[in-house]
């Protein structure tokens, strides 16, 4: 039996809290539909949603969420957006600590507000723009795995295949325990131990 588990594309089934998913995409429309479904599912389960976006305008994200049937009050706190440069590089340089501390604070705050948890997505295009080394990126993703064990945020890392080369994508796959592929959440057969995953060290290439 293949070591692959799937769940439905619309995330109607429970995603395990603390799951770290990798989403490789090249179709914007498909991505928008996928991410809207992801947040709609989380909100339906009482979670708070945070989308860390690259160049999108927060208003456009909210509009799409509404198009998906998720309605928001004017002062609704169930969903928000944040720019990825501010989240990953709050002081101008990539800072995994700041990012993860921020995620933890958000999670705790959400819980304090009465939410059941936090659904978090992060567009990783900033890494190409900022020429982040593959090794540094892989180490961050490995740390995320460890972080999520203590802070069970449901997280999706979004990688635009139009911006990363083939080798990088494969190495990124190695550090994500689950993936969104073809509309399915699958357990990642390429997932390897952290020490094996950090064997590369190449720089990201566009």
């Amino acid at each position, binding site marked *: 039996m*293949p070591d692959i588990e799937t769940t439905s594309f619309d995330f109607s089934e429970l995603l395990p809290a603390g799951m770290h998913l990798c989403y490789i995409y090249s179709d914007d429309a498909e991505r928008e539909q996928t991410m809207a479904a992801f947040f709609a599912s989380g909100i339906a389960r009482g979670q708070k949603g945070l989308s860390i976006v690259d160049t999108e305008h927060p208003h456009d994200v909210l509009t799409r969420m509404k198009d998906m049937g998720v309605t928001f009050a004017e002062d609704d706190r169930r969903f928000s957006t944040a720019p990825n440069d501010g989240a990953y590089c709050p002081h101008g340089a990539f800072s995994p600590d700041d990012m993860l501390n921020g995620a933890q604070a958000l999670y705790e705050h959400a819980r304090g507000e009465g939410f059941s948890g936090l659904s978090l997505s992060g567009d990783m295009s900033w890494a190409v723009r900022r020429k982040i080394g593959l090794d540094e990126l892989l180490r961050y993703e490995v740390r995320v795995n460890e972080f999520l064990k203590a802070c069970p945020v449901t997280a999706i890392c979004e990688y635009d295949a139009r911006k990363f*080369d*083939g080798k990088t994508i*494969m*190495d990124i796959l190695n550090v994500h325990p689950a993936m969104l592929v073809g509309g399915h959440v699958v357990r990642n*057969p*390429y997932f390897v131990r952290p020490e094996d995953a950090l064997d590369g060290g190449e720089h990201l290439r566009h």
Partner: protein
Amino acid sequence: MIADPTPLVDPRALGKLLLLQTTLHAMQTPEQIGDFVARGLQKLPGVVSVTLRMRGADGSAEHVARGEIGDAASARAGDGLPLSIPIASVRRVFGSIELDAEDGAAFLAYRPFVESLANTVALTIENRAHERALSQLNEGLESAVRDRTADLRAANENLRREIGERKLAKTALREGEARFRRLVQLMPIPLALVDAQSEMQYLNDRFSQVFGYTMEDIPTFHDWWHRAFPDAEYRAAVKARFAAAAEKAALTNSLIRPDEYRITCRDGTLRDVEVSGIGFDGELLATFVDLTDRKREEAALQTLQKLESLGTLAGGIAHDFNNVLTGILGNLSMLSERATDTGDESDLVREAIAASLTARGLAQQLLTFSSGGNPISANIDVAPLLRIAAGFAARGSGARCVIDTGDQPLPVYADKDQLTQIVQNLVINASQAMPDGGTITVHGALVDLAAGELPPLPGGRYVRCQVRDDGVGIPEANLPRIFDPYFTTKSKGHGLGLAVCHSIVVKHGGHIGVESRPGAGTCFTLHLPAIDPSAVAASACPAPVRTGSGRVLVMDDDVQVSRVLRRMLERLGYRVECTADGAAAIAAYASADGAGDPFGLVIMDLTIAGGMGGREAMTRLRVRFPEVRAVVSSGYGTDPVMADASIYGFRGVLAKPYRLEDVSRVVAAVTHGARIALGNP
């Protein structure tokens, strides 16, 4: 022990192959796919090395992707049985996957999955190529659409601008047309536009003002001909002339030559009009220049010129006539002094004097007619003047003249001859207004006018004279113009009679008005300021002939006049010396003064043919002898010097012809003495 010929497939490896296959859809370029797949296959169990050799769908250079990772992989070695799996679609081979495993035989179990992966790789590359082609096609289409849209937008913009410009042009044209139409409408020349079907298309305001016709009156050219030229014979002649002119104009492509026609207006009046025109696009634009007033003015000017020359002639005749009369009247008056009060001789002399005085009046009228000069006013009673002048003017006409002046005098300070002329003009007009006979009523009375009762006259006492007839009357429309110079409704009138009357009355500080109703007659009323009746009564008494003594210098170029004046003066007791012109008179005056026997009075003729007249001589005499006493005498009784003699230094006026008593009165008035002593007696 027999080895199992079918190696087992590791489910985890199978999962990787499936994940590779399903993730390929996100990959973009052959290089990316090659690197991704090579690296993914490298992680399959037992794989030593993987090499993908690939070309793009466009036949680009071969890309070689290797799956080795670091030294650990390169340290291993395959079993010498590498797999080579083509990357191909049904249409094209893109390359191959070359895979070396530690145990080639065992790896064969994965071959179908790797082949499936290779097919997916081929399909992905092919799809991407199609997508790029489609994208380029779309971009081309979009570019074409953009270009076309831009062209359309530019065309629309041009169209919008053109529409805007046309709107502006249309507005400008409409405004221009309106302005032009307004201009034509306001043109001071009558215009008419006739179309090719002889339908009247347009008449401007001036046309209707001049001729009275509107579009409703003359909807066609035919109607115009019949209304404007009701006489069939004249109409035929006019149409023939106009047609000939139009034909000639058409042949020469020029204006229809102006021609003069007499047009009957809507109210029946006739107007002399110069008609010209121009044909264009089958239509005719006709212009009408109204010559009526101009011709009337020209005729009036001719009349005036005739009158002026006639007046000059009449004045000359009257002057000479007065000189002749002076000889007759002067001698008769002296003869009358000698004749007994009874007897035939005395009657004969009186009748001769009366006839001479009548002749003097006629000469005066000639002078008034010739010059219209300033009045030579005196205190007179208008009552006898009315009786005499009206009776004289009505004589010979078919009308009966009834004169009522009451019992009291009607005193005015006026020029008797000019008033006579007024009365005679009004009476003659009245008689002409009654060609079949009727009654002319002349009425004179003293009236009191309140201030503002008859502007512009101030309040006061006036002599009112009325001349009334029961004739045809004057149309109401003509009344405002009745005193205008040259206005006349008579076929032979020159239009000056009433104008002269008006002028004379105004110069006397009076007023003349008219009331009339067609068919009921006309009444002219004039008001003249009245004076104290006693002044008239005193002047009416014949002054006695008063004698005197001293020397009188007479200056006149007419020997007969000089002779009779010498006789009269000598009869009155004076010593007389006569000269023929001003220069001689000045010399004689100076000589006498130098000799200590000066002249006490100089009587000078105003006009000396070819020599110095009385006016210049008086001017020179006054320079040397400021106290000179002089009387001006002339047959030109209306000359300004005669009217205002004191301005020129003269102390009296002696109008020719004169009688002995006239000379006596004037000399006495000038010398202020009961017994006159002029110079040395």
